[in-house]
């Protein structure tokens, strides 16, 4: 747990932040959001002693951070800096292993950890270990930046716009993966972003700042339902209902999907699914192959002859995707339900338009 008490920071005459009182709870993602120049980075850098507060006290697990040796403290806190800042003269593997090397881990342990981390951030170690930062795409570089911060398995992670430099699609993938990782590793994370959707999707606790001050500090749901003042209302915009869908994952709101094996014959199943003529088609391992409309299918043929193929990763989403992702994909494709598949593309269930409608209705009643 990180606590900031009465923090104030002046750069000369300029008051960068003031009257900061905030707690970043253990094992949770706290997201700081606010307009450019409102003091987000300054707040973050005070936690690892890169900026010294003019006033106030910061504690980590109730211990004053000034009691720590600055270098030692920083080695124990993962830090993803704004604009990534990979070391251009070091290979990917050396970039990732900077902190373990500072901590003098054994070569063997470092090599193992590097491979493990690359896998964690979804990059093939055979391909990437020996690359250099200028040979990476923006998204790959950001993954390496995150891997570097995680290298020595710190319990605290400071992330300054870690997914800022990528296109919306890649960002969404990175966010989803990030949540999956966090579900496993449970770090205390302070996360800065400019992107409200990202903030709402990731935050356990959302902190909205303006002109160096905290305006509201609460769970995203509370902020969306009870914005404190006009600034917050303007900030979160009018599509609050849609924004709340960002908090809900497909995994928690999917239904069982009606599906058939591709090897069945149409006439053998048509009576069984009279109520549900629209079916997903899987192979014997449960991998999603396509869909079929029994009303329009030729009864003499097999399902695999009559189905419409779905390319992997097109008309499907992962269990970690939000209901908003599901909704926007359905609207985009003009369909009323969307299949949920796991990493191996096995069918897990489906999310339907009616289902989302129900969720929204239920929320509005509370």
């Amino acid at each position, binding site marked *: 747990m990180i606590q900031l008490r009465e923090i104030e920071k002046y750069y000369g005459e300029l008051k960068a932040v003031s009257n900061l009182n905030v707690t970043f709870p253990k094992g949770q993602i706290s997201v700081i959001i606010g307009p450019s120049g409102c003091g987000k980075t300054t707040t973050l850098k005070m936690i690892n002693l890169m900026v010294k507060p003019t006033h106030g006290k910061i504690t980590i697990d109730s211990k004053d951070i000034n009691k720590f040796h600055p270098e030692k403290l920083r080695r124990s806190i993962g*830090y993803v800096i704004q604009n990534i800042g*990979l070391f*251009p003269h070091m290979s990917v593997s050396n970039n990732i292993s900077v902190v373990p090397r500072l901590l003098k881990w054994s070569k063997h342990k470092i090599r193992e950890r590097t491979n493990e981390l690359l896998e964690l951030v979804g990059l093939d170690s055979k391909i990437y270990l020996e690359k250099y930062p200028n040979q990476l795409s923006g998204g790959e570089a950001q993954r390496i930046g995150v891997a570097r911060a995680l290298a020595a398995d710190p319990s605290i992670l400071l992330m300054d716009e870690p997914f800022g430099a990528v296109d919306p699609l890649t960002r969404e993938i990175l966010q989803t993966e990030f949540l999956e990782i966090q579900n496993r590793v449970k770090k205390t994370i302070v996360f800065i972003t400019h992107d409200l959707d990202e903030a709402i999707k990731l935050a356990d606790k959302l902190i909205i700042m303006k002109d160096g001050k905290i305006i509201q500090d609460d769970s995203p749901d509370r902020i969306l339902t009870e914005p404190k003042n006009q600034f917050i209302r303007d900030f979160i915009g009018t599509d609050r209902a849609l924004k709340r869908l960002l908090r809900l994952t497909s995994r928690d709101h999917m239904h069982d999907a009606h599906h058939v094996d591709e090897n069945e014959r149409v006439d053998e199943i048509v009576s069984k699914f009279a109520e549900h003529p629209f079916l997903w088609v899987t192979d014997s391992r449960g991998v999603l192959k396509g869909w079929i409309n029994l009303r329009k299918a030729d009864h003499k043929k097999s399902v695999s002859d009559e189905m419409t193929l779905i390319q992997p990763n097109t008309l499907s989403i992962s269990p970690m995707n939000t209901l908003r992702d599901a909704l926007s994909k359905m609207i985009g494709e003009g369909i009323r339900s969307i299949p949920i598949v796991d990493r191996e593309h096995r069918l897990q269930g489906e999310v339907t338009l009616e289902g989302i409608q129900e969720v929204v209705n239920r929320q509005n009643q509370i």
Partner: protein
Amino acid sequence: MMIHWLKREHRFFPHINEFIQLTLFCLIFFVIINDSMFSFFLEPFSMGRDVILYQRANQIELVADHCALVVLSTVAAILTGVGLGIFATRKMGQDFEPLIQSISSLSQTFPPVAVLALTVPAVGFGFTPTLIALFLFSLLPILNNTIIGIRSISLEVLEAAVGMGMTKMQVLFQIELPLSARIISAGVRTAVVINVGTATIGALVGAGGLGAPILSGLEQNNPAMIIQGAFSAGFIALFFDWFFSCIEKRFYISENKND
């Protein structure tokens, strides 16, 4: 065909080009330090005189003296220049940067002959005043490039280094120096090449080196001797230039890591 063969060979012996170049340099070097062989080549320029080469010292001595002047002065300039450059880019040295810069550029605006004229009364004739002149002369490019190299490192990279928990020394040796090594080495290369040429004026104050045959050749109106000194000095300059270009290639280059 030849190029094709070389390219293919590259995979197994990546430095083959450099190896061939080095062999060539050694061959010519062998000719230059061998008095009888060198005089054979210079014979046509002697205009019928009996004396072809400089008599008071043999080529080995001349080349050795010359290289000693260049190497010693450059090593001193690297230590001082890089040291001052690092100091000027630290927080505590920031205030000194303008002073350091102006002193070093002042030392370069003095012509080397003038430096010689000023140092001779202080330290006497011979090797030392030349060494001082060369040292002062090569300081500026090295110091300048050190400061430019370190200053050109992006703020993000430095912030990341500090944020990862590197100490000031670790930031210097693991980040700043490796990232500016190429620029510093380019400064050293410039300094050395200038020094090889400038060292010939050392002969004016009796420092020896390849300036001696040039001076004698001018006095005696003997082109062979002038060529003896000038060609050797030119060759050494080329060699150093080549040598440092090989070193530079080993360092991090900001544009492209593929070559």
